[in-house]
């Protein structure tokens, strides 16, 4: 039998403190999600209607070329962006951790892009990558007549331009997290490795990286959230173009919700995203809570 203590005061206080979060949970997350799922099964256009059409919006969605392109773009972008920003962020952190001069300045330089909005990021990189007056022009001005850098206007390459800009934006944050992780590693480990005569790179690869699991996890989670939410960057940098080559799911939702006044299709897309996220995050959370419970028992 479980004895429940009627410690009313503290219990009540905990509920009071959690009430805003619970209200948000119920009203916003549950309420809005339910509404979204319901609307996705109607033929709503600009305003919600109750004209039930079953799963026809979903049929339309998955037959829609722009949606399938958006989804595959997100996969490519997500993979490349995660790998590149984690790698660059880690390398920068390692480099800065070598007791270099002007550490504070360098850290600020690497970190400042994160303070810029995606809109600004997209706008600036659109300029820099533009073939007529950006990097390509600079290369040509330097005397390389055949210099070509026109990825942003090529359907097959444009998504990598988004990756490029996004890495610029986020690598500093990864660096900060990694640097925090590196600084948290016991000095004695380095002493031991030095006495053992291990080369520095070897220490990083075999000893340091495995110890930085938490840093990598934090950075990965943060990066992953911005991947799924990718919207402003695509809008500001390429507006989904050329053609539909750099469309992304969140933009699909937004465009159909507002510009195109097709909230039925928009909510169907949103629901699909929600289900995908829940299918990935849910099991992960479950696994984590199991692990935590197992660890907490001892």
């Amino acid at each position, binding site marked *: 039998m479980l004895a429940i203590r009627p410690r009313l005061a503290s219990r009540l206080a905990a509920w009071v403190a959690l009430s805003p979060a619970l209200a948000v949970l119920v009203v916003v997350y549950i309420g809005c999600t339910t509404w979204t799922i319901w609307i996705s099964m109607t*033929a709503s*256009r*600009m*305003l919600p209607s109750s004209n039930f*059409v079953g799963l*026809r*919006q979903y049929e*339309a969605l998955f*037959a*829609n*070329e*722009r949606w399938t392109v958006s989804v595959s773009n997100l996969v490519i972008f997500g993979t490349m962006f995660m790998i590149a920003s984690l790698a660059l962020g880690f390398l920068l952190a390692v480099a800065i951790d070598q007791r270099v001069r002007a550490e504070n300045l360098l850290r600020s330089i690497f970190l400042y892009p994160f303070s810029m909005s995606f809109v600004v990021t997209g706008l600036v990189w*659109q300029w820099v990558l*533009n*073939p*007529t007056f950006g990097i390509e022009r600079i290369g040509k001005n330097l005397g390389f007549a055949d210099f070509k850098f*026109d990825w*942003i*206007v090529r*359907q097959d390459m444009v998504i990598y331009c988004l990756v490029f800009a996004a890495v610029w934006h986020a690598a500093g944050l990864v660096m900060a997290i990694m640097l925090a992780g590196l600084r948290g590693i016991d000095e004695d480990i380095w002493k031991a490795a030095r006495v053992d005569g291990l080369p520095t790179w070897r220490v990083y690869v075999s000893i340091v990286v495995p110890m930085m699991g938490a840093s990598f996890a934090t950075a990965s989670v943060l990066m992953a959230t911005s991947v799924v939410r990718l919207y402003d960057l695509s809008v500001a940098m*390429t*507006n*989904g*173009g*050329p*053609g*539909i*080559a750099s469309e992304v799911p969140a933009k699909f939702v937004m*465009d*159909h919700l*507002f*510009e*195109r*006044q*097709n909230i*039925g*299709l928009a909510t169907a897309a949103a629901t699909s995203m929600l289900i995908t996220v829940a299918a990935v995050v849910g099991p992960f959370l479950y696994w984590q809570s199991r692990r935590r419970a197992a660890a907490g028992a001892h």
Partner: protein
Amino acid sequence: MKHTASVVALALGLGWAGTAFAQDKAEVIHWWTSGGESAAVKVFADMYTKGGGTWVDTAIAGGANARTAAINRTVAGTPPTMMQFNTGKQFDELVENNLLNDVDAVAAEMKWKDKIPGPILAATTRNGKMFAVPVNIHGQNWLFFNTEVLKKLGAEEPKTFDDLLVVLEKAKAAGLIPLAFSGQKTWERGLFNTVMVGVGGPKLWMSVYGDKDPKALKSPEFKQVAETFAKLRNYVDAGAPGRNWNDATALVIQGKAAGQIMGDWAKGEFIAANQTAGKEYGCVVLSKAGGGYLMGGDVFAFPKTKDAAQQKQQIVLAKMLLDPATQVEFNKKKGSIPVRTDVDTSSMDICAQKGAKMAADPAQQAPAMELLTAPAVTGAVEDVISSYWNTPAQTVDQFADKFAAALKTL
């Protein structure tokens, strides 16, 4: 007791003062934010102010942004006095959900229905009642060209797309950018529509966008349209994708490109560069068999409100918008043409006069795409066109099939 009485009196007094203030006030949501556009909207504001009102300006750049804000506020029950839409179907559902006041009474009083071109009038009328006041007509399928460049190439002003292709070929040979293009989805759709009405003619136009007839998409005319459109790919430069339309116009102004296909708002750029229509640059609507001036534009709609004072202001605003003097003044600034066919346009530039003449001629009139298709359909078609333009490997048949599917959007 004495206290209570004075409090009530005070409250009443304040209430009265509040209404008096509201009486003269009109909040307008629109997306005219650039230099030329603000100058144009200032004409409305000044006229309204002259009539004793206070114009509260809520400008939000980007049509979708402005409409989102306006629609959300209307749904939320705190609407502006007046809100901007593009002429067409954007406000359909507001009418269906009984969220807009009609202006039929004013229209009858002012006899507007005789003075507004048919397609435009139809686009503002639902169930026989006029629900929005159109303020301008934008011709969407103009070709603007640099006269100097054409002269140098030894080319005549083109009348049809066949003529244009010849000119473009010459320009290409001369090492110029033949067609200044801004590779964004909207303008890809704009270019395609220009080709469709110019090559396929108004009949094809109406059966595709008006009747949404799948057979029309399998017709030889449509095939020819798609092929002509595809040919134009050869005449745009590498920097086109993602370019803003005004940057493309700048190429024409500077003589780096021969011409640009764009709506008449591009004139603003020529004017800003001190160029005059008919001198430094020319304008023409390409048409094979004559006819097919694609007319779009802007309208203002009036959300339902219980506030009697606001309703009164809505009528004041409606009358002001279509006042002949306001119309000419506004459209001069905006680069468009008056929506009334009975105003004197002789003070406007050559292109505007050309446009006004076509707009007044039922044989030349054609409704722009957004007058015929709902935004959801417009968007779906836009994706299909954009995908075709950017994927040279796509066949005309594939394109037609996708096009048909897009027209059937739920």
